[in-house]
């Protein structure tokens, strides 16, 4: 195995990780603040892709405009889910909110199937076929763009959590929800803000990835399963865990697809999850949450 191939795999792995990291980050934030495994986030990824697709295709908007539009719409939809479904169900506890989340995923997936049809789609990338080649390693312009935007979003979220008041509140609730309530943090209001942020990240990921990965109404389920596995892998509620988990899964998938067979790529990432669950139940970077 020569160096170029290794580097190429690394680049591809990091690129795949980008989309997972964004969805997983939202998922882990929601779990940390509200203890909900919000599977509806998968549908938001899918809707983000469709919004961007129709905004560029039918409305003739620039792709660069369509991404923030998609993020805004999916963020709003996530907030709506939170207010209309999760908030009233909150008292019923984890298992039932999880069912509600899957219910939303089912509704949105079928709604998309009804409105947009079941065909696979691909957004036209504004970068066409432009690519960077360095030491034999190929990186398309769109890939570079996605990596850049993802990095910006991750750093932005990290800074926001670290230095803004609501960000600090999110971290406080994630660490100690009882104590946070005692000092007067309204966890549901904060929860809605978390939904908005997570929804925007998921929708953004959908819009960013879809010029490269074809999508259909069912892509949400695949994306959310992977992201959820990543969240478990990194530790539920852990932010660095989500990013590290995404990188590990992205790399493992690329390597499996490259050296074993493409159809085993998914299998390897989920087998990795089970191994982690048995060896280190709280996840790679998580705290015990039994």
């Amino acid at each position, binding site marked *: 195995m020569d160096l170029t191939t290794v580097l190429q795999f690394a680049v591809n792995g990091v690129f795949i990780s980008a989309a997972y990291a964004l969805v997983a980050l939202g998922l882990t934030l929601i779990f940390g603040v509200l203890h909900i495994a919000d599977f509806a986030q998968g549908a938001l990824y899918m809707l983000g892709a469709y919004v961007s697709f129709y905004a560029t295709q039918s409305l003739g908007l620039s792709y660069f405009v369509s991404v923030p539009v998609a993020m805004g719409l999916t963020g709003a939809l996530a907030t709506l889910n939170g207010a209309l479904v999760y908030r009233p169900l909150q008292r019923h506890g984890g298992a039932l909110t999880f069912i509600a989340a899957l219910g939303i995923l089912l509704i949105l997936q079928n709604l998309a199937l009804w409105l947009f049809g079941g065909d696979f789609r691909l957004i036209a990338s504004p970068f066409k076929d432009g690519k960077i080649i360095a030491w034999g390693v190929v990186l398309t312009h769109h890939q570079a763009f996605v990596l850049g935007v993802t990095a910006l979003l991750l750093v932005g979220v990290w800074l926001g959590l670290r230095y803004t008041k609501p960000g600090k509140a999110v971290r406080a609730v994630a660490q100690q929800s009882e104590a946070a309530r005692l000092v007067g943090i309204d966890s549901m209001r904060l929860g809605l803000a978390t939904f908005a942020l997570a929804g925007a990240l998921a929708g953004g990921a959908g819009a960013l990835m879809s010029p490269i990965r074809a999508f259909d109404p069912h892509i949400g389920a695949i994306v959310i*399963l992977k992201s959820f596995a990543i969240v478990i892998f990194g530790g539920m509620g852990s932010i660095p865990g989500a990013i590290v988990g995404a990188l590990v899964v992205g790399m493992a998938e690329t390597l499996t697809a490259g050296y074993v067979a493409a159809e085993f790529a998914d299998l390897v990432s989920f087998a990795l999850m089970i191994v982690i669950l048995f060896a280190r139940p709280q996840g790679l970077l998580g705290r015990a949450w039994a």
Partner: protein
Amino acid sequence: MVRGGLFSASRAGWLAALAIAVVAPLVVRSPAYQNLLVVTGVNVMLVASLDLLIGQSGLLSLGHAAFWGIGAYTSALLSLRAGVPFVVAMLGAIVAAALCGVVIGYPSLRLRGHYFVLVTFIFGIIVTLLLTSLVTVTRGPMGLPGIPFATVPRLWGPPLVLNTFQNKAGYYYLVLGGVVLTLWLRGRVVKSRMGRALVAIREDEDLGRTVGIGTHGYKVGVFALSTGIAGLAGSLYAHYTTFLAPEIFDFVASFDLFVMNLVGGAGTAAGPVVGPVLLTVIRDLLRAVHPVLAGILFGMFLIAAIAFLPEGLVGRWQKVLASWRRGAKDPRGSFVRTGRESVAWDAHGGEVFGATREVGKRPAAGQGVKGSAFADGQTALLEWGETPVLAVEGLTRNFGGFRAVSNLSFEVFAGEIVGLVGPNGAGKTTTFNLITGFLRPTAGRVWFKGQDVTGMPPHELARRGLVRTFQQTRVFGRLTVMDNLRLGVHRHEPGGLRRGLLGLNVEEEAALERRVQEVLEFTGLWHQRDRRAEELPYGEQRMLGIAVALAVEPEVLLLDEPLAGMNPAEADATMALVCRVRERGVTVVLIDHHMETLMRYCDRLIVLHHGEKLAEGCPADVRANPEVVRVYLGDEAVLAR
């Protein structure tokens, strides 16, 4: 438990349901509807087995369809590739699914919380992926066609081939047999000793372990049973459709089963039938109208069901029925405690056993006492004050950098009442947790009846006669007082699943009922026997906690703050009971802040401070110890008396 009239009414209900199920294919002749009947039957088997986990044991499994798939593929591949007869393939399916259940369940059921849900969920995904990617074996996404029809051996003539394309009704009766078997098995398990252990796991696993229930073994056992039934359902499904594809058994299918269980009513008797019947039919009707719209409506239906019917249809129906029956005469148990109630138990208990001995007085040394209060004389006699029955040696426990218990050594002799006192954070409860196996000591040993029991699990210690209560009021809240006690006597119940299945445990049950009654009368709770534990007034809930521990027949009873939240009269009554317990030969170690009360009733006191032993001795000596006085500055008034 309601018996008698209602029992026969529910039996009539089951018979009526069975009659409808038997007649159904004769009435519904269209193949499409007969197909729906078969699918519903398979779903009932799956949900009823899933309910053993979710409803009965409180174990949320989100990968049940995977075991169904393992059963289906095993049966199909055995028939196709190895050409084994249907019955053998079916048995293979059961074994394969149950084996996977054990392999997955054994490690994952050790830990609590979301852990088991996650493992089952991911396992489900892995199974689907494996079925998809192992193309050489399963043909992957193309699916596995041409699975042979089931053949049933006959006494005369060639075996009967159940061609499901021509005759669905015949196969339906085979599936109905599976359904009846599943429900019968489930009913048997629920009523058996195992069923009670599972309820304990659902309600409060730690409390279950303190009464001697080996919860991990039961969890793995019920998981194997449940997955085995799912495997059977898989086999029945495979030879019905004769075609399998991986996505039939994906996580959406697992989720469907979960939802059917919840909508029907998890943990209710009829819920696992009502849920799948209703949802299978509703979805089929919706699909007939508009396939895509069906998905949307089904999703909305789920959310509505959770929002408005979180306890499920049957659960809600039972609630309505119960409130009718109670009527206006006997409103829901009042939570207000009256003076009469709080003293009732002591007067009652005193009457029954006629506590003649003066409280606080120790039987003369050398007087033989039975090792266990309620044992029927099988336990060896212990001599007072000879060998220590419980001893800890250099016990130490660190939490990170904090040393909660530090090099603690003490001995407790048979027949003593020993008080463990100390200010908050002195390490009293941690010491109990270390002794009873809820925490592992960082260093040091625990000896019980001359054996090293360091690090032994709580249920094992309970079986040997070392039983504890908890600081917080901990009872099985949703069970009646009687059922709480029945869990307490669990470890004395012989037989188990096999006997329960064959219904041979009538005699033993009667003996246990008598023992339950004895303990309830001893603790003065007999008049409350049919009330739910959570409806009892506070004082009686605490008493029930002790009663459950007594039912385990301890030789050493560790009471963690039994007097917490009690007024002086209640505290005295509780201590009087503790004295009577001791008279029956039980050694008692108790924790409390009430220095004054402990001094009056305990033979010896051990004072802890910052995890270390500050003083030990008879109450008078401890009272005079200047170190103790210094630590208890706030309690100087008490000590000065």
